[in-house]
């Protein structure tokens, strides 16, 4: 039986400033690539924030690999945190570090046994595969939106997480870089199980890699199935995110 990577169990939240209530039941199995689509304000990013432990639901519970963010000691939560790589809409790269040092930071902090050479090799490997090697010495203020986005993804992936949360990773990427990111994610998934939860605000080739698509509207799941099934059955509004 495949293990659940993420479980959102009867999660309900009163969304401040909105008349709708966010209510979601969702599971993702280990190694599955889930795409979340829907109009702005439908709750896609909120699902990622719930999974990342940034937001606590009013009701229900969120489990990652069977563990809740609310349970356990600080060390246990940190151990859980290291299994999750997150790249939110705003990358949050540390402005006083180069892109290289931003990507290296989690390794330097959590894997003190690694030598500088090991860290350099690992970081350069991720940067190279994401087409960032030539920009690695730039500070975030000097980088383009696409470079910042890819650096955030590299930082999220450098600790070899089991779950990757990506909030609109296609934003700011040109066609080549989108293709490169697709190949990068597929290569990683070919080598080891990696569950991915990804949102897209408009159609992108990145969505092609998903095993499953969940469509949201007004804080509720309106459709859940394979990309091909949704392309056939979805209404016109949802179809726009899939083709």
């Amino acid at each position, binding site marked *: 039986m495949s293990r659940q990577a993420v479980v959102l169990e009867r999660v309900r939240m009163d969304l401040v400033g909105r008349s709708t209530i966010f209510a979601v039941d969702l599971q993702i199995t280990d190694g599955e690539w889930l795409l979340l689509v829907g109009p702005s304000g439908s709750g896609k990013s909120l699902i990622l924030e719930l999974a990342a432990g940034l937001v606590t639901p009013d009701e229900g519970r969120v489990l990652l690999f069977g563990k809740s963010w609310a349970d356990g000691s*600080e060390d246990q939560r940190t151990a859980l*945190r290291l299994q999750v790589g*997150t790249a*939110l809409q*705003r990358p949050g790269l*540390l402005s006083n570090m180069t892109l290289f040092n931003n990507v290296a930071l989690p390794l330097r902090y959590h894997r*003190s046994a690694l030598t500088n050479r090991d860290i350099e090799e690992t970081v350069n490997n991720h940067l190279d595969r994401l087409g960032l090697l030539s920009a690695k010495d730039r500070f975030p203020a000097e980088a383009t939106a696409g470079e910042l986005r890819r650096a955030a993804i590299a930082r999220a992936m450098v600790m070899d997480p089991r779950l990757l949360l990506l909030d609109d990773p296609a934003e700011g990427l040109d066609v080549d870089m989108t293709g490169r990111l697709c190949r990068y994610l597929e290569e990683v998934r070919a080598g080891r199980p990696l569950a991915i939860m990804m949102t897209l605000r408009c159609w992108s080739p990145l969505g092609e890699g998903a095993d499953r698509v969940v469509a949201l509207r007004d804080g509720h799941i309106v459709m859940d199935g394979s990309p091909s099934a949704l392309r056939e059955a979805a209404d016109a509004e949802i179809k726009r995110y899939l083709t």
Partner: protein
Amino acid sequence: MIGWVGSKAIEAYAYLASLATLCAQAVVDLVRPSKQGRSETSRVIIRQILFTGVDALPVTSVIALLVGILIITQAGTQLPMLGAGGLIGSIIVLTVVRELGPLLTAFIVVGRSGTAIATELGNMSVNREVVALRLMGIPVSRFIIMPRMVGMVISIICLTLYFDVVAVLGGYLVAKVKLTVPFPAFIDGVMTALSSTDVTITAAKGLLFGTAVASICCHHGLSVQSSYTEVPQQTTRAMINSFVICFAADVLITVLLYL
């Protein structure tokens, strides 16, 4: 009116409680060091000491020298007229070593580094860098607050002692060049008036002021929510509150120990 006073008192209590919590967490992080992130944390501490301590040496030297000259000029011209020229040493110990040294050093550090910390952390909050650290499993307290607090405390203690030495040196220069007070009498007066308790209390004030300034500035920096316009507002609050709390703490220590 009573309601207003009550609400302000509750606000002040909540503010001091949050500062105490932040401070306590930093102390816990310091005394229970984690295996993770030791080198990164040490790097932040060293950077903080360089910025707060080493880079502040020129401005501290100038201010200390001027303060020493001012005090000795005033004391050196007035006291001999009253037949109390021998009290110059006592005056410099009382005013510079006990009070002005720690206080003015704290003010210099607030103006230079405290505001820089509040601004930096405010910008980090708006840029979602603080959230990103949490997402990487890097505790904000251990990576941001504790190193800044340790760096600031070490810097402020060293700067205070440095301030005292330079101020006394400034006084010595004036005493030597301009005043009628003989230099041996000046030095003898300083050494007689200065006790090891004075030096210990000066260092203790440095410890207290450093902790207070770092926690206040970190608290206000991290209080920034979502807008860059909040950054200067919180920085100003951090500066004013640091001044007031350092002053109040100084008065309290002086009253408790010397009255």
